[in-house]
């Protein structure tokens, strides 16, 4: 189970890659495995500013549908355009090609309150 050390994690199985005051957000390898084959990523919140824990979109697998939550507050700058035609990227490469949104963090200090790789690993029993 891959849990990169340089990312921060939410208890809802999103990851956050901090890039200055911006950050990339996606779901973890554990999360994509639990969902199974992902067939549709619906994110219609581009341009909106959302609070931490707000729903920013929905991920549909063949068998299940699951909400996506903001690990920290921020303005959604961009949705990964590749997911429109290739949602399976989330299964194949959840931490890189399968990223979901890029945000401008409202308060970059919020990211420090998220789990580190060890704590997230403990959460999922990895």
């Amino acid at each position, binding site marked *: 189970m891959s849990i990169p050390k340089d990312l921060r994690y939410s208890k809802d199985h999103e990851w956050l890659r901090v890039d200055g005051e911006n950050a990339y957000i996606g779901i973890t390898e554990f999360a994509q495995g639990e969902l199974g*084959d992902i*067939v*549709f990523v*619906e994110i219609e919140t581009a341009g909106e500013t959302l609070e931490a824990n707000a729903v920013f979109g*929905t991920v*549909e697998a*063949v*068998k299940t*549908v699951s909400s996506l939550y903001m690990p920290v507050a921020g303005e959604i700058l961009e949705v990964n355009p590749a997911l429109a035609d290739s949602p399976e990227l989330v299964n194949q490469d959840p931490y890189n090609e399968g990223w979901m949104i890029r945000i401008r963090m409202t308060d970059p200090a919020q990211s420090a309150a998220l789990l580190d790789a060890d704590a997230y690993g403990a959460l999922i029993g990895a």
Partner: protein
Amino acid sequence: MKHVVLNDTHIALGAKMVEFAGYNMPVSYAGLNKEHLAVRNNAGIFDVSHMGEFLVEGPHALELIQKVTSNDASKLSDGQVQYSCLPNETGGIVDDLLVYRKNAETFFLVVNASNIDKDWAHISKYNESIGARMTNLSEGMSLFAVQGPNAAQILQPLTDIDLASMKYYTFAEGTFAGVPDVLVSNTGYTGAGGFEIYMPNAQALHIWNAILEAGKAYGLELCGLGARDTLRLEKAFCLYGHEIDDTTNPIEAGLGWITKFTKDFNGRAFAEKLKNEGVQNKLVGFELTERGIPRQGYEIADASGNIIGRVTSGTQSPSLGKAIGLGYVKTEFAAPDTAIFIRIREKDIAAKVVKTPFL
């Protein structure tokens, strides 16, 4: 939670397990899409030992089956299988099932795992005045489905039953992987062709391993209930608890073809009335023309936003690469190409009624 005999085997083989109908069952192994496509194009094996099996025997066996089922079991010959359903007393469906005729006085019924106790009680109630001999074999039997175009080639070396000549919805008993009296039928729930193999629990692991060994050269895929569901949905086969339940009528559900008024049966009056007077709602297939995935329970709307029905099953079809579903709509919206809308997270997503099966 109940466990099938091969529970630990599935876990060791890497299955993701979920509770289904009170059993801990494999929902997937390598991934649903891969399993699904393997069955369509090659072959896959499913452990469906959670299914229930009843034996009905004696001089009154046929009389009991005719009383409780909607299809006409008197048309069966030895070695034939019939799809049927158990209508209830209020116009709904207790369960759908397969009826196997072993001989004129011996019938084998295969029912849904979630309904074993309910079916047993229902049939027993009608048997009080008829007096057939009933045996519930469910706890002691295992069932594997080997499905796909290469199923016969994989299984033939294991058995003296001639699989190539076995017709759809027929069965035979023979030696299988050295085990005598194994029942093999040309049936399944995938629409991909293949066989279902019934055996005592004590022989299940031996037979499972023999099939996996025989399947190695062909790339036989381990499959879970997730792929079983998407495979049946592409063929628009009803699933109890989705398209049919205690409140849906066989006529509305498109099961008129297994509702035979050539005989008397429990629930006949309801079905006959609907058949003669026409139904208000019909089960239809649909595909989405905008992005989205339909799910059971979602509302179906017309162009003005009026609710005209509900989704009973939906998925992204692995074979077709588009979102498909089944649902009940008011009869005036049931014709193919009718524009309908699936309400997904408070938005009406465009769809159109299509002919089934989808594939």
